């Protein structure tokens, strides 16, 4: 985590202590601890422990036997580290296919939103056409409607395409987003007019201007949208639960619920399954942490 964490400090670049007034900058790398700093660290680490410990316990439980997890008082470390719960997860469910489905779903939705939302956002931000504001208002109204409440007709549509239990069923409705359009429109609005005009004088067409001049300039917003969408897609449960009921076509989130149905309260197996299911997104987070942080921050700025 080290590298990305260090670079992630965009909001609060670690300050190496304030130089004493009039004096030379301190040479030591460790600043003198300010009063109360120890207490602050204590509180903060206690909070961090609360955030992280459940995952440690999840791993430890997955490595214990069923008999051991139901011992009172509980053991902390497994008596013998047994990995068989992980094997059991893979034999009980087509977990490999499920992980693949989740990946396809995530990539499909993210790619779709990046393409469709950026095109529309560009038109809304930089072009003038009849009915623009009305149309934009109409699109924004989708923001108000929780997509979970439209699943009945959406299911019928997917069924009429003959796409139930297929990968496109997972990502089709999620490729279109009002939030994404809004976010990217805001980004396009900040760009100076002169850029387009210069490109137009050079003889570039609308699409060329969009693609090679404007789009690269809103890369941070695109990255933010990609992260937000990817996370939502990976975590989505209700929709896949409805359209893809065949275990081989389910994403991992829905698969995990059917693991619960099958193993009821067999906790070591369920902990192993939930660990595997959440690991991919956590790994992506570790490597792209900066983008995650920026995406959240940008979702809050100016809205």
């Amino acid at each position, binding site marked *: *985590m080290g590298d990305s*964490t260090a670079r*992630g400090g965009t*909001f609060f670049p670690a300050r190496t202590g*304030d130089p004493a007034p009039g004096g030379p900058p301190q040479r030591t790398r460790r*600043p003198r601890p300010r009063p*109360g700093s120890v207490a*602050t660290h204590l509180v*903060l680490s206690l*909070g961090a422990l*609360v*955030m992280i410990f*459940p995952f440690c316990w*999840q791993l430890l*439980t997955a490595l214990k036997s069923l008999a051991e997890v*139901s*011992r*009172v008082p*509980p053991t902390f470390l497994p008596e013998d580290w047994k990995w068989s719960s992980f094997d059991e997860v893979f034999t009980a469910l087509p977990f490999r296919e499920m992980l693949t489905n989740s990946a396809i779903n995530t990539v499909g939705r993210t790619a779709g939103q990046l393409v*469709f939302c950026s*095109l529309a956002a*560009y*038109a*809304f931000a930089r*072009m003038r*056409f*009849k009915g623009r504001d009305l*149309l934009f208002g109409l*699109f924004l109204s*989708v923001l*108000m*409607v*929780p997509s979970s*409440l439209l699943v*009945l*007709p*959406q299911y*019928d*549509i997917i069924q009429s395409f003959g796409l139930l239990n297929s990968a496109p069923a997972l990502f089709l409705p999620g490729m*279109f987003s*009002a939030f994404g359009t809004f976010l990217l429109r805001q980004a396009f609005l900040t760009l100076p007019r002169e850029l387009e005009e210069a490109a137009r004088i050079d003889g570039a067409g*609308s699409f060329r201007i969009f693609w090679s001049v404007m789009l690269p300039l809103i890369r941070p917003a695109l990255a933010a949208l990609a992260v937000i969408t990817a996370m939502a897609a990976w*975590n989505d*449960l*209700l929709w896949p639960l409805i359209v893809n009921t065949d275990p081989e076509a389910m994403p991992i*989130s829905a698969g*995990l*619920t059917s693991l619960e149905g099958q193993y009821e309260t067999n*906790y070591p197996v369920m*902990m192993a399954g*939930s*660990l595997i299911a*959440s690991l991919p*997104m956590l790994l992506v*987070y570790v490597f792209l*942490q900066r983008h995650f*942080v920026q995406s*959240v921050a940008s*979702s*809050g700025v100016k809205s």
Partner: protein
Amino acid sequence: MSVFPATAAAKAADRRAARAAGTGPAGRDQRTAYLFVAPLGLGFALFYFWPMIQTFYFSFTEFGPFGGHTWVGGDNYARVVKDVTVWQALGNTVLYCGIGLTALPLALVVASLLNRRGLRAVPLYRALYFVPFVTLPVAVGLVWNWLYNGDFGLLNEVLGWFGVDRRYWVSDPSTAVFAIGAVMVWSTTGYYLILFMAGIKGIPQDYYEAAELDGAGAVRRFFTITLPLLSPTIFFASVICMIQSLQVFDLIYIMMGEKNPAVGDTQSVVGLFYKWAFMENAQGAAAALAFLLMLLIAALTYLQFRLQKRWVHYG
């Protein structure tokens, strides 16, 4: 097109007319704009606007178990309004919203602690606090169910050291909502933390330095500088929090089984919708419920934007 070639002003008017009519070079621009918007527009039409109309239509019908539906007028709406479980679910949703909001002050406190000058390891803390938010909600629910487990769960064990009696946290109707709510707070605090840290970063450091010179303590600085200047962000966070509490489904779905005695006390509106639509074959009533919830969310959002004028401080 104009017959008389005339003044520049007339020409401009001409161009405007041409643009409106969709011809000439400006008209091509219009067509391009529509082409840019079209893919998204079609997607919205197919997957959002049409379903919205259909949901509205469905809400006046009843589905046969194996197909076909009949017009039942306002029966579904009557059922929704009369059904006690709907009101219970609405009450639960309000409760989730209230519990969920406690993540805001928590995140605010952590954010201002992290804002202390000269504090080390800030990115590391931020990274750790954000992990629960990145984790699959279904997995989060399973892990917490295990921690909450009445017989063999760690929570009871730890509380036992402090003399607290063991409980079946998620199957006791008096504690289940709070148990689930606590998990919601746990998993969203990191999100609000980052929002607030970004907001605090936007506050000029001079304000704090000036206040410090005036002898204002940390607490005072928090209340006189951080809180008011952060109010737009706090407002945004509370809107997000409300919308998410209204839609909470995953956690409850995974943490509550059908035999759980606390099912009724924890069900959310979306959970009830899922149950009606996909477990009890009552799609018509579910559609009516969905439609009413959409109206409720629209009304609440409108209300919040009206209220923000009262307390949100835009600098």
